[in-house]
């Protein structure tokens, strides 16, 4: 089974976000970038599938700039076979103006040319929190899709996927080829060991310059939420209940 995994380089979740000089994007100074945490589950699931079946391939693909090679190497070190960097550095702002619509279009155009029995993606990237890419990609590739998958079983070329919805768990039957977006809880992503890191250096990483796709939205501003001023410390449970009742009026 050939699996394509779409990944993204994002700020680590413990980053403190500051607005950049343009007022539309973040100030990257001092921020550590990592593989999107939800993508780790996608990479792990793909590698596990190849190991279980004893055949097939895992190709990781990202849209970014040269910096994203680090995250692709991380995936190769975990055990992916090859990597593709869709290089947006030739686009205005290094592709900063690409929205989910344009991103999915560019990636879909390239995934079409890679053999795939399944495409895995993280449920959302923890920068834009869009959760749009997997379903958009599926629509553009004309594939069925199951999003936010927390349990996945493959038999006879069909997936049985479980996903948490409001107050319940859904069990979805889905044929392959398909797009699966992965949620936390699906598996325990492995850490790259030294052997993996050494092997990753020799694995193929192909860079393809991409041409622009027309975004359907433009970012016009980025703002930080107002700071909270710090709480009032109350001395007892009865003071707390009184405050909730009389000041906050929530009881």
């Amino acid at each position, binding site marked *: 089974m050939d699996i394509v995994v779409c990944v993204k380089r994002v700020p680590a979740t413990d980053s403190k976000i500051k607005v950049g000089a343009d007022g539309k994007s973040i100030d990257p100074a001092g921020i550590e970038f990592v593989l999107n945490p939800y993508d780790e589950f996608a990479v792990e699931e793909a590698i596990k599938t190849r190991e279980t079946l004893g055949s097939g391939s895992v190709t990781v693909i990202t849209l970014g700039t040269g910096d994203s090679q680090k995250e692709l190497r991380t995936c190769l070190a975990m055990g992916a076979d090859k990597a593709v960097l869709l290089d947006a550095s030739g686009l205005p702002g290094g592709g900063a103006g690409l929205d989910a*619509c344009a991103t999915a279009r560019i990636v879909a155009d390239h995934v079409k040319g890679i053999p795939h029995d399944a495409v895995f993606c993280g449920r959302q990237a923890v920068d834009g929190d869009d959760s749009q890419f997997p*379903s958009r990609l599926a629509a553009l590739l004309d594939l069925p899709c199951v999003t936010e998958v927390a349990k996945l079983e493959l038999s006879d070329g069909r997936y049985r996927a479980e996903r948490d919805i409001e107050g319940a768990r859904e069990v979805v039957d889905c044929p392959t080829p398909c797009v699966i977006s992965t949620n936390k809880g699906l598996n325990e992503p492995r850490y790259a060991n030294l052997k993996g890191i050494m092997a990753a250096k020799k694995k193929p990483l192909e860079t393809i310059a991409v041409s622009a796709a027309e975004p359907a939205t433009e970012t016009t501003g980025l703002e930080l939420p107002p700071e909270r001023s710090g709480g009032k410390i109350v001395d007892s449970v009865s003071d707390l209940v009184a405050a909730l009742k009389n000041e906050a009026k929530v009881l």
Partner: protein
Amino acid sequence: MSNIVVIADAREGKIKKPTLEAVGAAKELAGKSGGSVVAVVVGHQLDAAKQDLANSGASKVVAVDAETFAQYSGDGFARAILEQLEGLSPAAILMPHTAMGRDLMPRIAAKLDAGLVSDATALHFEGDRFGATKPVYAGKAYKKSMATRSPFLATLRPNNWEAGSGEGAEVVDASASFGSDQLKAIVKEVVSAASDRVPLQEAKVVVAGGRGLQAPENFKLVEDLAAAFGPGVAAVGASRAVVDAGWRPHREQVGQTGKVVAPTLYIAVGISGAIQHLAGMRTSRFIVAVNKDANAPIFKECDYGIVGDAFEICPALAEAIKAAAS
């Protein structure tokens, strides 16, 4: 005349508050942009849903009611909705940011080659353009985007708009051009969670526990405190630390790589307040922190803090809340 279309989340034929809020938001938006509000619902046995939508403030309800759609299918629902959208000339399309909305709307947006802002907390109409503001980095910042072409789509964060109301909208029954043999990914089974508690992101009150509770069995304190608010009011949340430790399921995790919540009241018990957790709950209307450590960062983000032992405070607070409620 262009319309504002609301796509209903009618899981099991039921219209819940997030969909009614989307109709409320659509009416507000139509007040600025012009056009009327049309609700589209796909499912099976939709009599109650049609009634609820007819009284939601929409001018018109279009219902595709067929056994084919008794269970959710992303590809099937998207196709049925796209067929209906053709005749509605939508300028904007809204849906609640529920599990169904997150799955379905990007699919529709891609087929329309249109822009979508997901998890929007505000909608805009400026000049002749639609747009929306949404939290990014789990709420550490807010991004405003405007559409560069039509139509414009948004999924709306629950608990952010007033539910719409009205009466007697025209209800049109429509049908899909295809049958169940055309569906690919299909829901086979829905296993309801054992508890009767409200979903985390819809709850008015969230009581969340962290590592300060010391052991998984001590989450009973948090569960009892949530239960004290009465049935259907409070949900239980958890910090990443206790989810990673396997004490609680991931569906309860609040914060980045978990859920972002904004209830009226958020009570953090034994949670120190890591930046990832704060991002997920800081827009709650009132935040109460219970922690032994007076220097815990959570006290900077809360409205009311109480420094002390959760094992004493939680039961006492539960009793007091029960007393206040009765």
